[in-house]
């Protein structure tokens, strides 16, 4: 499958947006670990925004960033949300309430508990009536999202936005599912090359024969291993390298081939080519 990347959005510890993250991902600037900073979005009214959890805030921020970078209209793009898990803070509160005798679950907590809560808030915020799906594939959720996004854009001919996110769980859930970082990434993907295209991705599933591609920086590598949405980091590093000024001046760029672990003894390989 061949698809084209038109825009990128990213939020993670020490990774504050695509512009600022590119030199960190290429190794041109040092990685400095810091708390996640989510840009205050103006998509949702303040009252609505207050009700939302971290996963919603992260998804809306990266989704919007990617779409602005791609100079697309959010209301016109089908959206694919991929996350290994939902809003752990919110679920923790519900589980505590249910373990008590009263068993009062707040209506807001309940509707925020669905896996597609970010998708619901996204469509409300962007006024998009386009299709939107929300999927999960444990540690391989980003990969599953990339596959779904590619098949959607190829089937419909429309550009789509892929939004992958994960948020750390509070204790005691964290001990059972130790997601290491809160991380979000968004890619606007299209089936056709346009003047917006940053890179071409050739995506294929095959039986596993290669180790998954790592990232050079040790702290980012730990984030990649510990956070399903951060499994995207090698792809983001390749995109950052490709679009950096330095490589654009070179005559010939060698395509980057990235291997992702996938399920059931499979791997996803992605060849990243300049446009």
């Amino acid at each position: 499958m061949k698809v084209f990347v038109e825009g990128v959005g990213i939020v993670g510890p020490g990774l504050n947006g695509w512009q600022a993250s590119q030199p960190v991902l290429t190794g041109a600037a040092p990685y400095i670990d810091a708390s996640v900073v989510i840009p205050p979005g103006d998509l949702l009214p303040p009252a609505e925004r207050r009700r939302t959890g971290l996963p919603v805030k992260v998804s809306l921020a990266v989704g919007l960033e990617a779409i602005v970078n791609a100079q697309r209209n959010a209301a016109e793009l089908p959206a694919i949300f991929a996350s290994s898990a939902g809003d752990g803070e919110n679920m923790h509160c519900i589980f505590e309430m249910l373990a008590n005798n009263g068993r009062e679950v707040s209506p807001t907590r309940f509707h925020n508990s669905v896996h597609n809560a970010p998708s619901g808030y996204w469509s409300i915020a962007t006024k998009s009536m386009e299709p939107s799906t929300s999927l999960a594939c444990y540690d391989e959720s980003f990969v599953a999202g990339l596959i779904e996004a590619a098949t959607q854009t190829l089937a419909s001919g429309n550009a789509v936005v892929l939004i992958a996110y994960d948020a750390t769980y509070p204790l005691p859930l964290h001990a059972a599912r130790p997601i290491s970082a809160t991380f979000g990434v968004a890619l606007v993907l299209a089936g056709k090359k346009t003047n917006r295209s940053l890179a071409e991705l050739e995506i294929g599933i095959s039986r596993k024969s290669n180790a998954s591609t790592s990232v050079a920086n040790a702290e980012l590598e730990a984030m990649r291993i510990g956070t399903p949405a951060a499994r995207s980091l090698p792809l983001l590093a390749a995109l950052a390298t490709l679009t950096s000024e330095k490589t654009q001046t070179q005559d010939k760029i060698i395509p980057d081939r990235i291997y992702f672990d996938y399920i059931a003894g499979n791997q996803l390989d992605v060849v990243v080519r300049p446009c």
Partner: protein
Amino acid sequence: MLKGRSGLQRCDFLDVDLDTYVGRVSGLEDLPVRADLAAYDCRNNRLAQLGLAQDNFTEAVAAARQRYGRERIGVFLGTSTSGILDTELAYRHRDPKTGALPESFNYAGSHSCYSVADFVQRVLDLAGPAMVVSTACSSSAKVFGSAARMIQAGLCDAAIVGGVDSLCLTTLYGFNSLGLVSSRPCRPFDTERDGISIGEAAGFVLLEKTSALMNSPLAVPDAVMLLGVGESSDAYHMSSPHPEGAGARLAIQAALQAAGLTPGDIDYINLHGTGTKANDAAEDKAVFNTFGGNTPCSSTKGATGHLLGAAGVTEAIISALCIQHGFMPGGLNTEHIDPTLKSAYLLKNKQQTLNFVLSNSLGFGGSNCSLVFGRMLKRAER
């Protein structure tokens, strides 16, 4: 369904103290998952295992595995709450000093949203693409779209699509907090309707490439085809449908367009029809504004309850059975159809040849999906 029987019963699930009816699958407590997959043992996966054992489904998948190879069959399943009942119960047994969950708690095999697809892929010995779609009550309708696209893209030749959702406290008490749980068996489209009855189910469909089916002995006259999938978002509210059914209407229109059909071609509509005031009113507008008031329609939730993440596939299977048996199910429990609802809601079973059936699934977060099924030969004639 032919006999008009409902599977709803007074809620006797665990120690739930709500005045409501549920569709509970009995005996799951005594049906652990098979020993080699014990790490996946939870109510949701037990229900999945029970579902896979019905109607020679596992045998049909084994035959497909022979035809295509285990890497060429995908698994795309819907669920809303996966195995979180295990987490709910584990929270009752936290260590009083540290707050830790019991050591027996296994997140990946139960709570994890992906758990059921992982489990089903292993039970069926498949190794193709897999994922879970979790878009609340439209989950297991939307997997049909994903599977069709995966097959179209050549990533697999066949797919297990379906959904599994099981009773848990979060949904029972959560829907109750929204005032959406009825104290009687749900009455879709009734003047007095006052909410849903929650049920549990596992449903699976083996979806295969048309080209393969046309040339196979399976191309029998009563084979049913997935002709169109339509998806949309309400962009309106997290837990209330768009009052005019605008999103639902978009999904219906997209499904008809994908099927190459017009509203007049549809013989019967299996409604989402949950039995809440808001859903039925909004869906009625979407249906009436697309089809007018003559296309027979009904909700089967009076029989099954609202199966949440398993509703889409269950109603897809019902739609296929309706086509194969020339049968339209009357909606159960409904006594007086709400006069403000204008669609042609069926109260009694009706025998009639059906060529094309549409099924609606509408979920929280404004996630809508409509599916169109049809008779294979009828489609080939067109």
